[in-house]
C-alpha cells in the first residue's frame, strides 16, 4: 500500500503541549494552572442572546463572511477601542475562532518557499500553519532581557529576500509580554522598508494592564500590509463558542473569504448572534474581568519572585512566565516533577518554542483561592529543590 499521508503533514511536529496534556490527564486530583482560557463563564446576557437566537430558530447558515450586523459591530468596536478603521463589507471576516483566521491568512498569502518570521515563545499554531501553507517558518527567539519584546534588530537579522510575512503575537501567550507604541514604531518602519506583510494576532488585546493595547495596523502605511486577527474567546470568556474575526486589506480579505467559504462555510450562527450582544453591551464585563486578572497578576508575580523564581512583570494576557533556571532544571523536568510531587500542573515553556527552555507558563485564569493553594505547593517544591 502506498503511504496515505502527504509529505507536508509528516513534517509538522505534534504539539508539545499535547504530550504534557497526556501526562496531566492521568493525575486525577491535580490542581492546574495550565489552561489558556478564562475562568469566567461567558457573561449571562451574552449567553442569553445565544439561547434567544436558538429559540427564534436562527439555525441556518449566515453569509460566508458573517452576519452583516456583527461585522458592523466589529468595525465599530475596532474603531472605538484601537482607532482602527475598516469597511465591514469588504475588509472584515467572521471566523471560527482566531485560530482559523491565522490559518487562512497564511494560506492566502504564501507561495511555496516564502519565509514567515515567527517570534517565539508564542502560540503553538503559527509554525505548523506556515508549513501547511507551503511556507518556511523562520523563528525569532524573543529574549528575557528584552522582556520578551520583539526588536528591530532581531527582524533585520532574520530577514532574507524570501521573507514575506511577520507574525506579531502580542499581547503574547505564553510570556504576557506586550508591545507599546514606542516598541512598535521601529518595527513598523522596518516592515515598510523591507516590504513585508504582517499578521497581527491581537486576541489578548483587551487584556493589558496599566496601558492600552496598540495595534501595529494603526501606524501610517501599515493598514495596507496588515491582517489583524482578534476574537471573542479571551475578552468575553467565549472560548467554546469558537468565534473570531480578521480585518485587513480588501484584496487579502477577499481571498480569505474564499478559503473560508470552501472549508468552513460560516462561523456558528448562534455564536454570531451572541457576539453582537458582546460587542454592543459587553464593555463592563471586560472591565470587570480585566480588573480581576490584574489583581491576581500582581499577587502571582510577587509570590513567585519571593520564592526565588525570577519573574518579569508581564503587562498582557493572563500568564506569567517565571524562570526556573536557578533550580538547575529544564522546563519539562520542573513541570513533570511539580506535577508528580505536588500535583500542580503548569506548562513547560518549551511547548511554545525551543527558546522557552528554562521557563514555565503559569496561567492566572483561576480564582484567588485556587492560586493561593497552588502557590503554597510550588513554594514547598522550590524550597525542597533549591540548590
Amino acid at each position: 500500500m502506498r503511504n496515505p499521508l502527504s509529505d507536508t503533514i509528516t513534517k509538522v511536529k505534534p504539539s508539545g503541549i499535547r504530550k504534557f496534556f497526556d501526562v496531566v490527564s492521568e493525575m486525577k486530583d491535580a490542581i492546574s494552572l495550565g489552561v489558556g482560557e478564562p475562568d469566567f463563564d461567558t457573561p449571562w446576557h451574552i449567553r442569553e442572546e445565544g439561547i434567544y437566537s436558538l429559540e427564534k430558530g436562527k439555525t441556518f447558515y449566515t453569509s460566508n463572511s458573517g452576519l452583516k450586523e456583527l461585522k458592523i459591530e466589529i468595525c465599530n468596536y475596532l474603531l472605538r477601542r484601537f482607532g482602527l478603521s475598516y469597511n465591514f463589507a469588504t475588509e472584515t471576516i467572521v471566523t471560527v475562532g482566531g485560530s482559523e483566521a491565522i490559518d487562512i491568512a497564511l494560506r492566502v498569502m504564501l507561495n511555496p518557499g516564502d519565509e514567515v518570521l515567527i517570534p517565539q515563545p508564542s502560540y503553538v499554531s503559527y509554525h505548523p500553519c506556515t508549513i501547511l501553507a507551503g511556507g518556511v517558518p523562520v523563528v525569532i527567539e524573543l529574549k528575557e532581557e528584552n522582556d520578551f519584546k520583539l526588536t528591530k534588530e532581531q527582524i533585520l537579522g532574520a530577514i532574507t529576500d524570501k521573507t514575506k510575512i511577520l507574525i506579531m503575537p502580542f499581547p503574547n501567550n505564553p510570556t504576557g509580554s506586550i508591545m507599546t507604541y514606542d516598541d512598535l514604531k521601529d518595527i513598523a518602519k522596518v516592515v515598510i522598508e523591507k516590504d513585508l506583510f504582517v499578521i497581527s494576532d491581537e486576541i489578548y488585546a483587551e487584556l493589558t494592564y496599566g496601558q492600552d493595547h496598540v495595534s501595529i495596523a494603526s501606524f501610517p502605511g501599515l493598514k495596507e500590509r496588515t491582517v489583524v486577527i482578534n476574537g471573542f474567546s479571551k475578552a468575553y470568556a467565549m472560548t467554546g463558542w469558537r468565534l473570531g474575526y480578521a480585518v485587513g486589506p480588501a484584496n487579502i480579505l477577499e481571498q480569505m473569504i474564499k478559503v473560508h467559504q470552501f472549508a468552513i462555510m460560516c462561523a456558528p450562527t448562534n455564536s454570531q448572534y451572541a457576539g453582537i450582544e458582546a460587542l454592543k453591551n459587553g464593555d463592563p464585563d471586560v472591565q470587570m474581568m480585566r480588573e480581576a486578572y490584574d489583581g491576581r497578576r500582581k499577587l502571582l508575580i510577587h509570590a513567585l519572585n519571593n520564592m526565588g523564581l525570577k519573574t518579569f512583570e508581564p503587562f498582557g494576557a493572563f500568564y506569567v512566565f517565571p524562570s526556573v533556571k536557578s533550580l538547575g532544571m529544564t522546563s519539562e523536568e520542573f513541570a513533570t516533577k511539580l506535577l508528580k510531587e505536588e500535583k500542580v500542573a503548569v506548562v513547560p515553556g518549551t511547548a511554545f518554542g525551543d527558546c522557552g527552555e528554562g521557563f514555565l507558563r503559569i496561567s492566572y485564569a483561576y480564582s484567588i483561592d485556587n492560586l493561593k493553594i497552588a502557590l503554597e505547593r510550588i513554594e514547598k517544591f522550590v524550597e525542597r529543590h533549591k540548590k
Partner: protein
Amino acid sequence: MRRRLLEAMDKNSKVSAADLALMLGSTEEEVTALIKTLEDEAVICGYPTLINWDKVECERVTALIEVKVTPQRGLGFDRIAERIYKFHEVQSVYLMSGGFDLTVIITGKTLGEVANFVSAKLAPMDAVQSTATHFVLKKYKEHGLPLVQESHDERMLISP
C-alpha cells in the same frame, strides 16, 4: 482606590489586607488604614457570613412582609422604620416606591413565630395601616452569590 477596594471586598471579605494591597498595587498599611476609615464612616457596616441555612438541619423561616404605614410629620418614614428594624428578628427593612411603603424581611424559627411577630408586634403599631406576609420557600441567590452547588471547573487541565 476606595471603589476598587470595596469592589474587591464586596464578594469576599476574607481576603487579607496583605493580598488586597498586592492586588490593588498599594501597601498593607494603606489598605488597613483605608478599611478602618471606611468602617468609621459606616461605608463598611459589617462582615456577615453568607450561609445557606437550607442545608443546616435547623428550622428557620424567612418571610417578606409588605407594610403600609402612615408617615409622621417632620420625620417621614424614618421613625417608623427604626421602630421596626430594632426588633432582632428583622433582617432587612427597605423603603419602597409603589403599592406599599416598607419591605420588612424577618426570620424566625417557625411559621408560628413569624406569624406571632406580625400579629403581636408589627400590625398593632399605630403607624402601620396594613401588612401582607409572604413566606420564602427557597433561596437561590443572595448578595450576588448563588446558593446552589457551585459547578466545578470544567476546563481541560492543560490547553494552549
